[in-house]
């Protein structure tokens, strides 16, 4: 799950990280008041779940409250990479002496959190990694022991000459680690971590991605979910316990299992068409899931055909067939349906589908070809 910069900053602040004062709003009329309260020049920052806000004009400096209000009016409603800006963060603008990068992700191969720091802050860290890898220091943390201060100091000293600044930065790195572990993050980064001319260390940008699997025990993080930023059909799918990702093609796909669902999309593409979505109904055989899946896919006007690819294991083919029949009877889909059934209770499934004159094939390739044919018709 993605959260906004202002939310990430709230979390970091809880763990003691130094963050400039700021406030979020969706109302340009409030911006002046907020800027006035801060009483200094401010930054007006678009809050959207995509990168590249700065380049898109979503981050502006304002000398005073009036300027801040003008910027906010321009930014709110702006489209950044297909996302509409609905909130802005007004935050104290600070003098910047140096900009550094600090971030943590889980290293899947080493099975450890890995902390990365670089004196090249405020730019894309992947670019730094590609062009000047020697400007990045990586450090793995023993998850049993946790980050130790000497390690944080080692990272901080890579970035800062000054021992006093390094000590402050080491503390921030410890706080970054604590936050990362405590909120079930999959990524936590501060870019840039800045120093001011008077020797302060501040996190002026913040990003945290959350591991969805941890949300069950972090209701305060789950509450940060911003439905405005998510595709409504994806939200609906999530509520119906379906894994769904919206795409741009015309072949609606309903599959059991994530790997098979991806392979189905790939097969559609292989035979020259485009999938309309990724959809995994999961391991359970609940006919309701099938009905919900069809409903969600049919919201998309691009969808020309619905393709079922079911390899029965735990999922029983007859349950899926029952779901298809119920859905067809319920809302009479305006597009053709093609079905592949193999595995557990395959024969029972076929029999059930006869009721609505649907003939299921048993080959994945055949069903994809047929779907493409029907979509083109």
């Amino acid at each position, binding site marked *: 799950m993605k959260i906004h910069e202002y939310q990430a900053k709230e979390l970091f602040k809880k763990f003691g990280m130094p963050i400039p004062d700021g406030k979020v709003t969706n109302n340009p009329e409030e911006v002046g008041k907020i800027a006035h309260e801060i009483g200094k020049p401010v930054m007006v920052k678009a809050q959207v779940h995509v990168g590249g806000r700065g380049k898109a004009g979503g981050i502006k400096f304002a000398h005073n409250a009036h300027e801040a209000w003008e910027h906010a009016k321009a930014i709110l409603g702006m489209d950044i990479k297909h996302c509409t800006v609905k909130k802005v963060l007004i935050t104290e603008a600070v003098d910047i002496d140096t900009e550094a990068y600090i971030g943590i992700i889980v290293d899947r191969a080493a099975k450890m959190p890995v902390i990365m720091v670089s004196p090249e802050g405020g730019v894309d860290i*992947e670019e730094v990694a590609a062009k000047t890898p020697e400007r990045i220091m990586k450090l793995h943390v023993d998850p049993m022991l946790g980050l130790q201060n000497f390690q944080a100091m080692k990272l901080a000293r890579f970035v800062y000459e000054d021992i006093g600044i390094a000590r402050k930065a080491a503390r921030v790195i410890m706080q970054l680690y604590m936050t990362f572990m405590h909120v079930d993050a999959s990524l936590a980064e501060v870019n840039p971590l800045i120093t001011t001319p008077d020797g302060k260390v501040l996190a002026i940008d913040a990003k945290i991605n959350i591991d969805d699997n941890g949300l069950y025990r972090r209701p305060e993080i789950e509450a940060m979910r911003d439905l405005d930023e998510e595709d409504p059909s994806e939200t609906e799918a999530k509520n119906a316990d379906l894994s769904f990702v919206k795409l741009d093609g015309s072949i609606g796909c309903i599959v059991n299992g994530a790997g*098979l*669902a991806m392979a189905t999309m790939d097969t559609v593409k292989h035979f020259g068409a485009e999938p309309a979505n990724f959809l995994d109904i999961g391991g359970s055989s609940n006919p309701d899931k099938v009905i919900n899946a069809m409903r969600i896919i049919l919201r998309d006007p691009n969808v020309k055909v619905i393709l079922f690819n079911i390899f029965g*294991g735990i999922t029983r083919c007859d349950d899926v067939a029952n779901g298809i029949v119920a859905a067809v009877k319920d809302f009479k889909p305006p597009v053709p349906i093609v079905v592949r059934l193999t595995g557990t209770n395959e024969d029972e499934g076929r029999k059930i589908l006869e009721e609505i004159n649907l003939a299921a094939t048993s080959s994945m390739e055949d069903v994809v070809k047929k779907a493409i044919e029907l979509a083109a018709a």
Partner: protein
Amino acid sequence: MAIFLSRKNKVIVQGITGRDGSFHTQQMVDYGTQVVGGVTPGKGGETVHGVPVFESVEDAVKSTYADTSVIFVPPKFSVDAIYEAVDAGIKLVVCITEGVPAIDMLKVYHYVQSHGARLIGPNCPGIISPGLSKVGIMPAQIHRKGKVGVVSRSGTLTYEVVFALTNKKIGQSTVIGIGGDPIIGTNFIDCIDAFNKDKMTDGIVLIGEIGGTDEEEAAKYIKKNVKKPVVAFIAGRTAPPGKRMGHAGAIISGGTGTAEDKIKALNAVGIPVADLPAQVADLMAEKLGTAKKKKKSAKKTKKSSK
């Protein structure tokens, strides 16, 4: 022969009285797996499909000498279940549960390692050595005893590939679903290494997907260590970046983990990657055919050189 799982494994089911636990206990018993017990606190003394239920893994191990466990408990309890199994001396833990937080798995991984045990999963279909034993949720009937090892990050996609192999009469020594999460107990390389050493495995099928760099690491490893034929399939060529495709681990992030990268890395070390799942069977048939011929001609050469 097979890897990790043979007829000898004595299996307990953690969460045996739950819906999935109970159903798959029956399935495993029917397949011939030695299911010697189950665990559900508060239900010790009951039986499920004739299998005795214990209060704890410790109790179960003491009574049954179990060495293997399969976990069906909800994510909230599954980490505890893994620790309990390993603490009680279980050497092979298969965690079916989906939804375990990655940060918990970091500790779990190192704990399991330091105790000399093996964890498969979480979020996996389990492991089957066709004709010998099955510890997991895969449909048994699509498998066929044979000499190809299959290792996969997926569930149903694995069935699809196995189904194609079986249809071509290419049997399997062992089929392992290692799981779709970012942090898993057993990786491609662990399985490939075991298949490579297994005398009854002649070829290896690797089924990968987007996310992480496990396939790339596997390619490097194979180049260095494996002479047996390997063929692969990678799911997610059409997956958009930044989106989690069902599996927690299936996500292209920061430009890494794309299907293209993985296919390139595999091809670079001579591993053909099928365009469609069923083609894996054709590629393997071809490789095995060639390998057989090579072997034969090698034998001939040897003979003639005498």
